[in-house]
């Protein structure tokens, strides 16, 4: 069972306080988008072995959403950060690079 630190309230807590919300940094495609774009937005989620970016909500806590960068193999947590961003911040990317040189995820590396 994971422990995560909510970057919104600063509490470090076990997984039962949180609720997973799937892949992070998904761009919404609404009316006017092509079928392929919309399909990609709704259904094409990555499930990589290794570095992954996820959404979590501190459901039994401050109620805020945040992002987590995590290794799906070792469960190492590289960091958690604000949900109000469209890409992982540089310090998170640096930390991943230090631990997993040469990593990439979607368009980020």
């Amino acid at each position: 069972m994971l422990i995560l630190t909510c970057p919104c309230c600063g509490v470090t807590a076990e997984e039962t306080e949180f609720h997973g919300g799937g892949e992070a940094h998904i761009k919404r495609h609404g009316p006017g988008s092509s079928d392929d774009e919309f399909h990609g937005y709704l259904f094409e989620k990555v499930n990589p072995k290794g570095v992954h970016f996820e959404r979590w909500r501190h459901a039994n806590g401050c109620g805020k959403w945040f992002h987590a960068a995590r290794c799906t193999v070792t469960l190492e947590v590289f960091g958690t950060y604000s949900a109000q961003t469209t890409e992982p911040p540089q310090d998170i990317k640096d930390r991943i690079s230090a631990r997993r040189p040469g990593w990439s995820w979607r368009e980020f590396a």
Partner: protein
Amino acid sequence: MSTRLANGGRLLNKARTLEFTFNGKRFKGVEGDTLASALLANDQMLVGRSFKYHRPRGIVSSGAEEPNALVGLGEDARFEPNQRVTTTELFDGLTCASQNHWPSLEFDIGAINAKLSRFLPAGFYYKTFMFPRPFWKHVYEPIIRQSAGLGRAPRDRDQDSYEHFYAFFDVVVIGGGVAGLQAAKAAGDAGAKVLLMEQTPHWGGRAPVDGGTVDGQPVDKFVDGIVSVLETMENVTLRRRMMGAGVYDHGYLLGYERVNDHRPDASGPRHRLWRIRAGQIVTATGAIERPICFSGNDVPGVMLASAVRDYAVDYGVSIGDRTVVVTNNDDAYRTAITLKKLGLEIPAIVDTRASGGGALAGEAIELGIRVENGKGIARVKGKKRVEAVEICVQAGEGAALEEIRCDAVAMSGGWSPIVHLWSHCGGKLLWDEEKAMFRPDVDNAPTGADGQGFVRCAGAAEGHLDLADVLNGADAAGKAAAQATGHTPKRSKVPVADNPKEAGIEPVWLMPQGAGVKLRMKAWLDYQNDVKVSDVQLAAREGFESVEHAKRYTTLGMATDQGKLSNINGLAILSDALGQPIPQTGTTTFRPPYTPISLASIAGEARNETFQPLRKTPMHRWHAENGAYWEPVGAWRRPYCFPKPGESIEDAVQREVKATRDSLGLLDASTLGKIIVKGPDAGRFLDMLYTNMMSTLKPGRCRYGLMCNENGFLMDDGVVARLDEETFLCHTTTGGAESIHAHMEEWLQTEWWDWKVYTANVTEQFAQVAVVGPKARKVLEKLTDDDISAEALSFMGWTDVTFGTIRARVFRISFSGELSYEIAVRASHGRAFWDMILKAGAEFDVTPYGTEALHIMRAEKGFIMIGDETDGTVIPQDLGLDWAISKKKDDYLGKRAQERRHMSDPTRWKLVGLETLDGATLPDGAYATAQGNNANGQRNVQGRVTSTYHSPTLGRGIAMGLVLNGPDRMGEVLEFPKVDGTVMRAKIVEPVFYDKDGEKQNV
């Protein structure tokens, strides 16, 4: 025979006698006994029958690894099957019974299986119970059920209580032997917050039994000393009777504390499951001695050498008068020496090593014990008790050199570190050729949230069998663990141990080495599951080469002991059969818990009235006192109806509907979700959330809205009231209150975070009462001076009203088609308001109604219900709700999805009303059949019933359903086959059955 010795028993208080019963026989033990030592003291060596062949089995170990001696412990509300006698502390009045035999332990019919053992090889069940198929239900399954399982399941409800406890430590040390004690002290000295747990009631582990000295004093004195130091350390917590059950991700650790097993009459929980977060874990869990595979190694009286020693030293019990020791290492010599010094006979030590043992062997010889090097046991003679052993050359095929009379055999095949907890969360193992053991690969530890290793090993669990190595390693592990959690270890001297130098082990996986098939068929690997050397060899021949496959095929290492004694021997035999080195075969996966833990301890507080939270409205007690028949709605309990004495559920529902339509009904609608949405962008936000246009709603007015997810599917509906320019109050379904609030927050926080909107879930702030029926206004006007006339408060309007002293917000909305007000008051005033309406409504024969009357009235009006008409695949367009979908908006959640081809497909089933030709009520969920069959040979369908009721208003069955091209087929008759084979016929009609023009609600 086994008996209590006049001397010895370092864990006993012989002054206190305890009485217990086994299979109805009364026995006496003493304080400090385990059930095992007490049974042995009473010469009760035979304690059970084996699982498959029902062979007589005796106690083989003295600890958690025991495979044979499982009993049903206790009676009635305290009965528990499969309890190991070796880990059960004796208490006065204990009752237990042996398992897996009929009619009795001494005479067992099932033992015939042993005679048939040639016909019950590995994979017997897989091979036999295959064909013919119909045999499964009536022949095979009953046979398998009859023979399955060890103990029987308890019949009565468990009377004890159980609990969890969340605790946090820098360092948790598992195992209170000398290694664990030293590691805890080293970590504690560094200032770390330490928990040291020990599964038995005693500190020190087995080192005090094994001898040697620490800092010049006997080991038990060292243990007493270090424990008394640890007890004074404020940062160290010591817990006995607490087992490290499992190690999980990120330092999560389950500690299983058997609080009251040994004193069942004490108050408090029986077990406490500690849910621990540890910065670092040190496993000082010791090692388990391996049996040796020789013919007849399961005859009662054959026991692990260390166990024989434990019973003698710790409990003053001798297993036999004449004990033959058989070993491939030096440790078993300690048993021979101990027994000899107690005055018991050791006819021979049979040592498989041609070169013999080290210093301990010398001591044994000096004591006059005969030592036979390079020899083994060819077979054990005796059925329910060892009578003699045949000695042979280990390197040969088992020709008997001589027969030695004895009544006990103490065997030692070497030691295996207990690597379970290390391995639970991914710690890797190494095969140590020299020590013939798998030990932790310390460079490949389980890693935590920070990617660093969080488990260390100490003592025998790390692979150290020498006392000095144990203490040095443990001290280092404790210091390293403290350092890893941010503490600075103190420079300190490690206690100096002195122990005889031991000669090396020579692995023995089969005895004798060239044992023929007859011997191998009686050489047991896994006592609990009756797996023999020959079974594993057969599995290998049949292609089950992976150790995981071989395990499942042969059942080696399954069931309650999970192969604690058998795994290493088994995989060595498998490796040999496959002609590959042991590390290549590897081990099966070690999974938690280490030994079985009670299910009730896992449930913890979640039992009885706290099994799950039940949500109750402020009027709940009134409902209960007035005969509510409950319906679970999410976690809420809502009244389904209020049957009067002698009235059926159906009659009560019909009465409630009629009374409401005729005069006045009252519904507790408190469970409906209520969410405040406020801010300059609130209108814009709700326009995105609802399919309707909400931003144009005027303050003081209400609007019914639909909410879809991004897939386009309808997820919730409800009435939105605009409270002021910037504030909306969104009503959701009962089940949607939390999820829709979360849905709103998700979009606000993760997509439109620059929009100025705040939400607050105020569902429980208000008790909400629907006052419904032609007399609704009349009753309310009795209670207030405020103007609630049709002009002042028109349909779909809201206003604030004071009823007596109670402030309320009144929404004039209707889910029944009647004149209707939904009135929200503060929850703490809910009951008072409910009572007020009941009193004032008496003259109108006010009738509280439940959820079923609510459902019928909405169905009569053709109103949809989320969860009935919708199932997660239905879009608003399917339900004819196009009027509630704004055409003016560029975007709303679900809009893009509803443009997808499949969503706009004209052949999607659409909502219609259904009227049976004979007025009967359609079954819920019934399908309308179409011509022909589908690819699976099933009848084609063209629609299904989504809601169906007997309408008291119309005196007939009414239904709604989704039907292919339904709205274009008015008047057509569909066929609905029932499960009883008959067919119901129903006509497609408009879904609104009652007051089509809405005149009644708009008065």
